[in-house]
């Protein structure tokens, strides 16, 4: 269980004169539930953009299953097994929910076997597990917020990832909806998927994660068990500003 799945080593990212990440290093173990927290603008989303390939880091290395990936385009990283959901849902809005899942199924899993694969059946199976099966034929632009969050996760799942990065999948949801999403992520983790959860909702992240890292102004200020991180004076200062 202690085998490293993802290694981020000294990653920095600048946008013009603004430094979003400074020398961030972290190793995520296979099968782990990893929480990433930090105040707004602390670089959480920049870090996962660098991991998923939406952005390229300026310095440092990113290794996935022992392979350096930091210069691969995002689609290749997805094919290697890194999937993500977006903080602001980005559904393929002109398509039905089930078609949203068929895209990654066709482009990741079944590239060589399009004619024999039952992509539709597989997509419906994933929707059933996430609890969206009754919306399969609905156009994605007619979904509610919580359904959109679920679709984000379902679409990421359809890429059959080994690492799933969930970027604030719960922001703006009600307590019961948050419980629903946490339960989904837990069941995915039990099925063997490593999960990085980025979240502002502290009780959810603390309950879910085995290990938590806190970023502030692009630097790691604390890393450890949820209890250690909550007790850390640096973390309290970053959040409360005292």
């Amino acid at each position, binding site marked *: 269980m202690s085998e490293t799945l993802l290694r981020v080593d000294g990653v920095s990212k600048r946008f013009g004169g603004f430094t979003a990440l400074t020398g961030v290093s972290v190793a995520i173990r296979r099968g782990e539930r990893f929480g990433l927290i930090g105040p707004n603008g602390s670089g959480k989303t920049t870090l996962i953009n660098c991991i*998923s*390939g*939406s952005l390229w880091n300026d310095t440092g290395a990113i290794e996935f299953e022992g392979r350096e990936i930091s210069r691969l*385009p*995002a*689609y290749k990283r*997805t*094919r290697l097994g890194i*999937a*993500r959901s*977006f903080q602001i849902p*980005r*559904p*393929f*809005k*002109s*398509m039905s929910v089930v*078609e949203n899942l*068929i*895209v*990654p199924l*066709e*482009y*990741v899993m079944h590239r060589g076997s*399009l004619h024999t694969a039952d992509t539709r059946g597989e997509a419906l199976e994933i929707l059933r597990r996430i609890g969206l099966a009754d919306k399969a*034929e609905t156009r994605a632009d007619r979904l509610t917020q919580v359904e959109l969050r679920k679709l984000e996760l379902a*679409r*990421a799942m*359809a*890429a059959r990832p080994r690492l799933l990065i969930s970027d604030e999948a719960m922001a703006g949801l009600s307590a019961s909806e948050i419980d629903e999403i946490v339960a989904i992520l837990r069941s995915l983790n039990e099925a063997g998927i490593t999960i990085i959860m980025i979240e502002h909702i502290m009780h959810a992240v603390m309950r879910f994660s085995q290990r938590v890292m806190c970023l502030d102004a692009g630097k790691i200020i604390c890393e450890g068990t949820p209890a250690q991180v909550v007790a850390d004076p640096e973390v309290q200062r970053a959040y409360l500003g005292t």
Partner: protein
Amino acid sequence: MTRSATGFWIGAVAVVVLAALVAVSGANEYFFFAGFVVLQFVVLATAWNILGGYAGYVNFGTGAFFGVGAYTAVVLFKALSAPLWAQILAGAGVSGLLGFGIGLLTLRLRGIFFSIATVAVAIILETLVINWRYVGGATGIQLLRPPVMWPFETYTRMLFVVVALLAVLAVSIARYIETSWLGRGLRAIRDSEEAAECTGVPTLKLKLFACTVSGAMMGTAGALLPMYQSFVEPASSFSLNYSVAALAMPMIGGTSHWLGPVVGAILLGTIQQVVTVTISSELNVLVVGVLLVLFVVAAPEGIVGLARKLARVRAPTAGAA
């Protein structure tokens, strides 16, 4: 699915056979002259829609691809007296290469910047041809049509059948792309490029593919122009009117379905021909403009979108299935 595929192929063959039958009949020559233009617009609109409709990248440089197709045919004809089929193939090849090249340079630009870049390409290429004496420069070049093939009476009739064949071919390719994984990838790009990339869609490759195929199709349409007119000059070959029409027709017909550009091109192309004959050739540009504004405001999903909406309203229970 298979039933609609069978229906499509029967329809496709029927269109070509019908065109051939009409062409050997005694119909008025003007019908073929006007019909050629309408079908040529079916090719252009269908080609434009592959990149503009499916992937959402608005190409404003249809004139560039069309003109390059035309001048490729001119060079081949003048240098080698190449037959028509060779002119068409070469026009497709060169315009396809142009599409690939422009795509490589500009498809990293998004939205309006891509559109502006394509306009620039059209202007640059027109300027090049204006200064190229071999193909007649700004004054243009007169070409003598070779003798017509049996069983056609005139060259225009033969070209009418050829363009009908090309139109059917273009629509078949567009339909294949639309209904396959390729089309789904292109639509994913249109809806959210970043999300598409993160679900494994190689966005740049797919856009390059669409731009190349689209350019090649526009080139085939252009390659017919020299023989159709027996005369080619740069201003009308690279005309912005082609760019506007190729964009307006899918918008009016509907961009999300292969039938959209076909309906738009037949409707708008026919109106243009009628207006040109009955009123004036200047007015037909106005017709395109007014219709485009009307549809963008009132029916952004085009005629096909409107028809679908009507069908849903009439059969509300079937819509849920």
